[in-house]
């Protein structure tokens, strides 16, 4: 066994709350060896970040403090070191990468400056040497045009590039231990794949021991040598990655793994999971929603007279149908126009094109759509907390659409609200409480109840489960499926998570740069992806199975280009050609996708 | 001259153009920069020729002939001539000059056309030769010689006025004892002695530094530290007692009288003051002694419009004695037994609002409910100039300080019918045709032999005015000048009744 570098023993970390100290890391112990990757997994709030901050001595002051235990780095107890000595450890012996590449770099300093600082702090050297070393590490993290990057500011880089810079900074002094706290959570899957691949390659070259913190079991399976699963501050399971995945001892771990959606789990099945895999029998039904040539552009103004100078081509000529009882999913990476499509259907922003819902054409001009049309489409948003007025009780919130549309009042209203609460699995007495008194999953149930209250024919669900922990996510997905089975409601399901989409959809549309590049039955798209972008997307998804680990991420490179163009820009429209039953793929346009 | 002194003022010096300057601060500066045909003997109100060596008056009092002093040089080196006299007065009455003093010269022949801009100059001024100038009047004017001593009649050289145009006031050129050396707007002015001044040995100083923007209290503190020689705004009320009770400073203070009366105007056009009984009642109700106490005894209670120093002051007149009970009775007789409400306007600079409040309390005791409007001076003046705006005005801060020591100056604009017009200064809107006629008669008594009789007539006029009680004369303010110990001058010079605060030409330093 390689040399033991870090040893954590009985670590207890507490945070001060209004009701007294709360233990958030509770007697955690583990060892870390040279060249090893230890994953700490667990759901939100389980204490993963607190653990890493405790080790680094960077707990938020004065709320949190280490209440007991030892953190031994090659035998020295870090917890006993004075701040001065700890500074020599940080960045030098133990380096750290944080979750949010967007906010973890100082916005007012150049990359070169921030990187140079990391180098010269622990190893004072003349400026020119610092520069060449900085350049060297940037090259090491395989960033494009490294010389140029040195002079750039963080906001000029994409998320993936920033995370590369963070890694470069962490590796600048060849640390013994690298702690990466959710380093890829904020990134798109393709970028995530690139970063994970990079970390693996670098580890191979330098032998740095990595503590990788993540809630994504796919990432764990991909990266870990050993795994610790945390729940409520305690390690409930630990062991080698294959042991944990194949023979989880703890019930919590088992539940967790069971809830994780796996890409490929539906291979060979036609319909979504909720229908036991049965495909929708469409028959002669007319489409419930018809969207033709939907285009949304945002103006960017500037110049002397604030004239439109550029446009964001958020959605370009998107067409699709949704049939009664069907779930159509839109997938694609950040910024590709998924949400904009959904919001345009809700008439929440100005759009062009043609939309027919349940036989009624929608007027793109009026923001205040006729109420009757509005009743047929409802929306569930990504962040359930943000989409509920925090000052109202959830009872009022669920009743509100009914009141607005004058559908019920008095005891009838009461009954209806009660029914809805029951339907989404919330206790009826919860109606008097405010949104902040609920958990994330419960809040999303409130949102669903609210959307259901008008008995819409179609619900647009925009990343409605992305913010939830996997176990909760599974429950909500199940609820959505049940509702569909019961009432034949249609969903437009917007998500970037391929595994979830696979589970829930009848049909899938893949969006890239504001256009649909591939659309078809879920099975056809997932099992026989035709467009290069779809392929790339599929291959980037980490599979929560340590045996299916990818050794090379070589397929996945490149960044997504910007959708901002000048006024005279004429987009190349994707020419969708049919290649199978209802399966359409863009052939000529958007070649850069691959 | 030798040495330099520092004088401070709170407000800016606005202009040094003698045709325009009419402020407390610039009045005596202009006097030191320019000379008129006439002047007063330093420290007194006695008229003497200045740029004139002599003058004659025709028997009908309609023609004045001045013989001019020879060899007097303007600061620019040119000799002063008779044509300058004519130019100066033509300029003052020319409406383009916008001189606030133009009206003083309304008795000169040709004034009407000249001041209306219809004629280029005054017909009544004739340049006889370089050293003789003759004035023809349209009516006898007993105060004419005083007017020739006014700043507005101080002689300016045409070429300098032409050169600087509207900015002549910033670049004054005169014949006076001092000339302007430096002027930093808003900060300081430096005057230096005129070596060619026509009176030998004058001025006694080398230079005078005037610093503006200095609060009176600050000025006094600086004077106590020896940084300032004369506090131009006098001893501030806040420091008065302190200074007067301090043996160290007591000797530095010189007091004197000035031609000032502080009064309350009662608008005879607005009820209840359209009733003479009410006006008399108010006269009896105001406790002047207490008001004088409130301003720390820096004044003497007054009972008539004229200040004691003014010829024509009636020493026998007792006025309305303080008698609130009698006042109440009078008010009842006038039909206001249940009291009456009215408004008192006052300028909003200390101590005026305080005095107004003292008056307010006095009137409250006889059942008059007085509301105070404490406004910027300009707004008070504007209100006074409208017949129906200001029932009462306390004149403090804008009060009448005589332009020249002659009783006529206290009548026309402020008590005569001529002033009771929109925009006028007769804020009582008091117009007694009979008295106006008497006033014209008095003004026509220009013959020196009639001087005595003329003064008697004026005395009579002002006593009769008090019967109608359009004013409440409250007090005559005393002058208190404090100077630094190193400054030497006779007391009379330090409280010169014409040059305020001091007669710069006659002071010296140790």
């Amino acid at each position, binding site marked *: 066994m390689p040399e033991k570098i870090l040893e954590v023993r009985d670590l207890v970390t507490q945070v001060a709350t209004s009701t007294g100290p709360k233990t958030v890391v509770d007697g955690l112990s583990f060892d870390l060896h040279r060249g090893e990757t230890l994953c700490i997994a667990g759901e939100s709030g389980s204490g993963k970040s607190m653990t890493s901050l405790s080790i680094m001595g*960077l707990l938020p002051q*004065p709320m949190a403090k280490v209440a007991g235990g030892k953190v031994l780095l090659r035998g020295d107890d870090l917890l006993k070191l004075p701040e001065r000595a700890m500074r020599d*450890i*940080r*960045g030098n012996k133990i*380096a*750290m990468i*944080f979750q949010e590449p967007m*906010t973890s*770099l*100082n*916005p*007012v300093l150049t990359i070169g400056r921030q990187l140079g*600082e990391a180098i010269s*702090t622990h190893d004072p050297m003349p400026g020119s040497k610092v520069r060449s070393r900085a350049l060297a590490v940037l090259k090491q993290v395989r960033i494009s045009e490294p010389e140029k990057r040195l002079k750039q*500011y963080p*906001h*000029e880089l994409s998320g993936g590039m920033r995370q590369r810079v963070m890694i470069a*900074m962490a590796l600048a002094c060849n640390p013994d231990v690298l702690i990466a706290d959710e380093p890829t959570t904020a990134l798109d899957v393709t970028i995530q794949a690139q970063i994970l691949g990079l970390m693996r390659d670098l580890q191979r070259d330098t032998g740095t021991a990595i503590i990788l913190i993540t809630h994504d079991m796919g990432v764990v399976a991909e990266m870990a040598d050993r795994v610790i699963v945390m729940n409520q501050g305690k390690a409930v399971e630990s062991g080698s990655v294959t042991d944990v995945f194949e023979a989880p001892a703890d019930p919590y771990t088992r539940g967790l793994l069971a809830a994780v959606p796996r890409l490929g789990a539906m291979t060979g099945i036609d319909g979504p999971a909720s229908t036991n895999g049965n495909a929708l029998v469409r028959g002669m039904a007319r489409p419930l929603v018809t969207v033709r040539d939907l285009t949304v552009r945002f103006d960017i*103004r*500037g110049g*002397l007279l604030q004239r439109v*100078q550029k446009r964001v081509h958020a959605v370009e000529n998107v067409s699709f149908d949704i049939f009664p009882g069907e779930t159509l999913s839109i997938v694609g990476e950040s910024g590709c126009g998924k949400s904009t499509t959904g919001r345009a259907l809700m008439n929440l922003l100005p759009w062009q094109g043609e939309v027919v819902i349940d036989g009624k054409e929608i007027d793109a001009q009026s923001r205040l759509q006729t109420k009757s049309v509005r009743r047929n489409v409802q929306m569930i948003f990504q962040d359930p907390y943000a989409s509920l007025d925090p000052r109202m009780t959830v009872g009022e919130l669920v009743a509100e659409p009914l009141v607005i549309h004058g559908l019920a009042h008095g005891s009838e209203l009461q009954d209806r609200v009660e029914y809805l609460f029951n339907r989404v699995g919330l206790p009826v007495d919860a109606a008097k409480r405010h949104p902040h008194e609920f958990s994330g999953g419960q809040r999303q149930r409130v949102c669903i109840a609210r959307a259901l209250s008008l008995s819409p024919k179609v619900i647009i669900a925009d990343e409605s489960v992305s913010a939830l922990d996997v176990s909760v996510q599974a429950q909500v997905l199940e609820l959505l499926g049940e509702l569909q089975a019961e009432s034949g409601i249609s969903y437009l399901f917007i998500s970037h998570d391929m595994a979830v989409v696979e589970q829930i959809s009848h049909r899938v549309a893949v969006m890239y740069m504001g256009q649909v590049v591939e659309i078809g039955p879920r099975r056809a798209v997932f099992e026989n992806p035709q467009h290069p972008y779809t392929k790339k997307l599929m291959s980037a998804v980490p599979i929560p199975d340590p045996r299916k680990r990818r050794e090379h991420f070589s397929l996945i490179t490149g960044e997504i280009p910007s959708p901002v163009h000048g006024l005279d820009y004429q987009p190349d429209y994707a020419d969708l050609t049919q290649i199978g039953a209802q399966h359409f793929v863009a052939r000529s346009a958007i070649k850069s996708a691959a | 001259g030798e040495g330099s002194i520092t004088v401070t003022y*709170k*407000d*800016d010096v*606005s*202009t040094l153009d003698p045709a*325009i300057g009419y402020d407390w601060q610039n009045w005596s500066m202009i006097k030191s920069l320019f000379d008129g045909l006439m002047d007063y003997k330093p420290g007194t109100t006695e008229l003497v020729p200045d740029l004139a060596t002599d003058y004659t008056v025709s028997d009908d009092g309609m023609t004045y002939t001045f013989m001019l002093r020879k060899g007097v040089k303007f600061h620019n080196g040119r000799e002063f001539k008779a044509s300058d006299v004519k130019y100066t007065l033509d300029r003052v009455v020319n*409406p383009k000059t*916008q001189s*606030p*003093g133009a*009206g003083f010269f309304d008795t000169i022949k040709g004034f009407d056309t000249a*001041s*209306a801009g219809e004629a280029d100059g005054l017909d009544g001024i004739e340049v006889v030769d370089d050293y003789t100038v003759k004035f023809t009047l349209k009516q006898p004017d007993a105060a004419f010689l005083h007017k020739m001593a006014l700043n507005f009649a101080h002689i300016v050289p045409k070429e300098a006025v032409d050169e600087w145009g509207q*900015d002549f*006031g*910033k670049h004054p050129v005169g014949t006076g004892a001092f000339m302007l050396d430096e002027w*930093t*707007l*808003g*900060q300081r002015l430096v005057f230096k002695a005129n070596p060619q001044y026509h009176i030998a040995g004058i001025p006694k100083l080398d230079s005078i530094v005037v610093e503006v*923007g200095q*609060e009176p209290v*600050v000025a006094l*503190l*600086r004077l106590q*530290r020896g940084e300032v020689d004369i506090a131009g705004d006098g001893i501030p009320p806040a420091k008065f007692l302190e200074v007067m009770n301090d043996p160290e400073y007591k000797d530095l203070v010189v007091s004197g009288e000035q031609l000032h009366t502080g009064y309350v105007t009662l608008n005879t056009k607005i009820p209840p003051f359209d009733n003479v009984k009410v006006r008399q009642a108010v006269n009896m109700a105001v406790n002047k002694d207490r008001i004088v106490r409130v301003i720390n005894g820096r004044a003497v209670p007054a009972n008539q419009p004229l200040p004691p120093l003014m010829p024509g002051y009636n020493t026998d007149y007792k006025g309305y004695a303080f008698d609130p009970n009698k006042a109440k009775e009078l008010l009842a007789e006038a039909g206001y037994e249940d009291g009456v409400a009215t408004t008192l306007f006052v300028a909003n*600079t200390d101590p005026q609002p305080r005095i107004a409040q003292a008056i307010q309390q006095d009137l409250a005791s006889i059942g008059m409910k007085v509301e105070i409007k404490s406004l910027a*001076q*300009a*707004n008070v*003046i*504007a209100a006074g100039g409208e017949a129906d705006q200001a029932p009462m005005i306390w004149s403090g801060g804008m009060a009448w300080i005589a332009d020249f020591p002659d009783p006529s100056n206290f009548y*026309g*604009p*402020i008590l005569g019918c001529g002033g009771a*017009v929109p*925009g006028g200064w007769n804020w009582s809107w008091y117009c007694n045709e009979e008295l106006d006629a008497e006033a014209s008669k008095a003004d026509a008594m220009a013959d020196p032999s009639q001087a005595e009789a003329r003064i008697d007539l004026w005395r009579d006029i002002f006593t009769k005015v008090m019967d109608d009680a359009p004013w409440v004369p409250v007090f005559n303010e005393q002058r208190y000048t404090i100077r630094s110990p190193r400054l030497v001058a006779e007391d009379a010079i330090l409280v010169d009744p014409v040059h305020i605060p001091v007669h710069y030409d006659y002071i010296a330093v140790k």
Partner: protein
Amino acid sequence: MIAYILRRVLQAALILLGVSVVTYALLYMLPADPARQIAGRSATAETVANIREQLGLNLPFYEQYLRYLGNLLQGDFGRSYLQKTEVGELIAARLPATLLLMAGAIFCELLLGLTAGAIGAIKRNTSVDRTLMVVSFVGVSAPQFVVGILMLYLFAVVLGWFPIGGYGTFSHLVLPSVSMGFLGAGWYSRMMRSSMLDVLRQDYVRTARAKGLGRARVFFVHAFPNALLPIIAMIGIDIGMFMSGIVVVESVFGWPGIGQLAWQAIQRVDIPIIMGVTLVSACAIVLGNLLADLVVPLIDPRIKLR
């Protein structure tokens, strides 16, 4: 960038135009009649009428205003009614004093305010922090005339450390600057404290610490410039407060700036001066804000001027 500046200047010009209309209209409505004041107390009605005509005061409002505006566009603020001097000249003569005072006050504000705020944030919830915060609360609560008179009394009259008012040397500048800066220092320290607390919680500060940087470096290089950003916008707004403050502070200390000029003019309703000072102040405010907006991108590269 150029387009941005041009647009902002255009906007500023429009605002100034608005300010001039409103002020002119307000002053037009003032009850005092300038012609009468100029004419003096011995003037006849004809003289007054004549002067009114000369000054164009008998014209309808809009014509008067357009005349004024026309002159203004040629850089002519008109002539003071009572001082008979070019208003531009009067303002120019006094502006340096006001600018000096402003510079002194801003210096005091920033020095005291930023230091106190930063110390408060670093030592948050200690007695040092609490004391500083109470002092800055007093700062924002104390009227400038009270502070001014108090300082004058204490440091000039009683202790004699500084001259009692006046203008000229550095020691003259100290008390007025401090009296004027005290209020702003209070604001800045409170803003700085919360801004700094905000920044110290940011991820990039944690990153900097994770790199093993020393406290001073984390503070000055990473936290300080970021904490400064919201404060720069404040400095722009501050200029408006200054313009109000100078009227009071200059009169307490006898400082020969445009505040005193304005105050004297208001007392005597010398309309051209009031107009001029108002416009100059409005200019300063608008310029201050523009400048602040232009400075921010120099520190913060994320902000692009469009």
